[in-house]
C-alpha cells in the first residue's frame, strides 16, 4: 500500500482521535469507551508506517498521536484527596520503620556532634567562636536573654506571622538540602547532619553556660520534637539514596538510586509535614512568654513522646498494608 492510500484509509480515525484528545484536555467531553482500542490501532499503524518506510512526516504525525494517547492512557491519579494524604502518612511511618538502620545512623550523626559540641562549649567559653561568628553569637545570646519579655528572634507583638514565614523558609529548606545532599554518595547528608548537630549543640552549650537555660530549653523543647526529628528523618532519606549509590547490590547504580529515591521521598512527605507543624509551634507557641515554663516543658515532653510513639510504636504503620 502506498503512503497516500494508507493515509486515505486511516486519516478519519486519526482526526477523530485527535479531536477526542483535545476535547478531553479542555474538559469538554470524557473519553470514549473505545479509546484504548483506537489507541492500539494507531500504535499498529505507526509500526506499519515505519516498516513500510513511509515519509518522516507521516511517521512523526503517527508518533505524536501515539504520544498523546500514551500520556492519557498511562497517566496516574494526581488529584489530592483525603485518602491520598492518609496513605502518604501510612507509608511515611512504614518507610521509617523499614529503614531504621538509616534512621539510627542519621541520629548518631546528628546527636553525637551535638552532644560533643554542647559539652565542649559548656566547659570552654571560647570554643563557640571557632564555629559561629562572634556577631552571630551575640545575636543568639540576646535572643534568649531572660531579661527580655519576648524570646526567640527579637520581635514585637504582631511578628509571630512573620516568624512563621521565616521558620518555614529556613527550616524546611535545611531539611530539604540535607536530603538532596545525599545524592553525593551520602556525603552531603552527613555534612548537613553533623553541621546542624554541631551548631545546635554549640548554641545549647553556650547558652547553658551563660545561664540562659531557663529561657532556651522551654523555647526549643516544643517545636524541637518535630523539627529536630524531621531533620534527622530527612538526613536518613538522604543517606538512603547515598547508600544506594555506594552499594547498589544486584542493581545498576542508576536503578538502585531510582528505587531508593522512591522510598526516600515517602519519608520526606512526612518530614515536610512535621517541619510545617514545627514552624507553626515555633512561631505561635514556643515564643510566648505568658505561659508558665512548667507548662511549656510539659507540653514539650508530651510532643517528644507523641512523635516517637507515632513514628515507631503506633499501630499506624501496621494498618493498610496493601497500599
Amino acid at each position, binding site marked *: 500500500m502506498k503512503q497516500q492510500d494508507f493515509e486515505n484509509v486511516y486519516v478519519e480515525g486519526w482526526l477523530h482521535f485527535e479531536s477526542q484528545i483535545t476535547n478531553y484536555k479542555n474538559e469538554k467531553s470524557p473519553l470514549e469507551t473505545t479509546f484504548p482500542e483506537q489507541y492500539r490501532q494507531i500504535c499498529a499503524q505507526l509500526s506499519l508506517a515505519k516498516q513500510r518506510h513511509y515519509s518522516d512526516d507521516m511517521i512523526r*504525525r503517527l508518533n505524536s498521536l501515539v504520544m498523546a494517547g500514551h500520556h492519557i492512557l498511562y497517566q496516574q491519579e494526581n488529584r489530592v484527596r483525603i485518602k491520598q494524604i492518609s496513605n502518604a502518612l501510612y507509608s511515611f511511618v512504614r518507610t521509617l520503620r523499614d529503614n531504621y538502620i538509616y534512621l539510627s545512623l542519621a541520629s548518631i550523626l546528628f546527636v553525637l556532634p551535638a552532644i560533643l559540641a554542647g559539652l565542649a562549649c559548656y566547659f570552654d567559653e571560647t570554643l563557640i567562636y571557632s564555629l559561629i561568628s562572634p556577631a552571630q553569637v551575640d545575636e543568639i545570646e540576646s535572643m534568649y536573654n531572660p531579661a527580655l519579655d519576648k524570646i526567640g528572634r527579637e520581635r514585637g507583638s504582631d511578628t509571630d506571622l512573620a516568624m512563621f514565614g521565616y521558620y518555614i523558609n529556613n527550616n524546611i529548606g535545611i531539611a530539604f538540602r540535607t536530603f*538532596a545532599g545525599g545524592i553525593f554518595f551520602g556525603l552531603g547528608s552527613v555534612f548537613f547532619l553533623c553541621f546542624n548537630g554541631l551548631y545546635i549543640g554549640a548554641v545549647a552549650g553556650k547558652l547553658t553556660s551563660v545561664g540562659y537555660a531557663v529561657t532556651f530549653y522551654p523555647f526549643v523543647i516544643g517545636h524541637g520534637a518535630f523539627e529536630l526529628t524531621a531533620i534527622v528523618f530527612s538526613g536518613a532519606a538522604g543517606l538512603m539514596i547515598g547508600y544506594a549509590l555506594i552499594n547498589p547490590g544486584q542493581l545498576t547504580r542508576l536503578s538502585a538510586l531510582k528505587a531508593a529515591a522512591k522510598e526516600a521521598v515517602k519519608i520526606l512527605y512526612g518530614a515536610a509535614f512535621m517541619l510545617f507543624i514545627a514552624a507553626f509551634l515555633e512561631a505561635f507557641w514556643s515564643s510566648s512568654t505568658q505561659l508558665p515554663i512548667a507548662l511549656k516543658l510539659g507540653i514539650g515532653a508530651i510532643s517528644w513522646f507523641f512523635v516517637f510513639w507515632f513514628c515507631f510504636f503506633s499501630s499506624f504503620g501496621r494498618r493498610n498494608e496493601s497500599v
Partner: protein
Amino acid sequence: MKKLIDTSCSIETPEGIDFSSTIAGPIPRTLAYAIDLGWRCLIYLGIGLVTIFTGNVGVGFFLVITFLLEWFYPVFFEVFRHGQTPGKKALGLRVVNEDYTPVNWSGSTIRNLLRSADFLPVFYLFGITSITLSKKFQRLGDMAAGTVVIYTPQKINSLLDNEITPIAPSQPLTPQEKQAISNFTLRTSSISEARQVELTNLLEPITKSTGSEGLNLVKSIGAWLLGKK
C-alpha cells in the same frame, strides 16, 4: 545504513511498538529555567510591593510564598499542567517519566528537591555537567526520579503539491532511497528553489538530467512513491 546520532530516544510501549521522542538538551532547558526564574521574580516583586505596606503579617506571607515558589513551583506545574512549567511551555518542553508516561507526585517531588543538589557548587554547575554527560540529558534530580525532559510534538501539515504528475522510477530503488525521495518531495515547500536544484543534481545518475528538469523529475518520482494517482 550507518546509524546516525541524534537526540531522539525510543521506548517500547506495552502495545509492543517503539515510539520515539526528542530529548531536550542543556540550552533549551536553561532558557526554560530563565523564563521560570523571570516569572518567579515578577511574582516576588508583585507580592513584595503589596506586602511592604502590611507590616509583619505581610512579611510572613511573603516568606511563605517565597518558600512555596522556590521549592514547589515546578512540582505544581509538572503535576497539574502536563509536565510543563510556563518556561517549558514557552520552549515546547515537557517533563515525563523515562517511559514517557506523565510525571506523578513522587517523581516530580524527587526531581525538584534534588534541584538544590544540582544547583551546587554555583549556578547549576553539577546539573549542567550531569545533563551534558548523561545519555538522556538528565540532571541528578532527573536520574533519581527517572524523568526526562522531551520536546512536545510539533504540528505537522506537509501537503503534497497537486501540480505534480506522478512518474514511476525507471530503476529499482532501495527502501532508504524511496524514503529519502518522498521526504524530499513533501518538504520542498520549506527548502529554497536553488537548494532543491542543488540537491537533485546529486541524483543525476538516476534522473539523467540536471537543473529544474531534474528537480521536477525527482518530485514526480516522489509523488509516485507516495501513491499519487
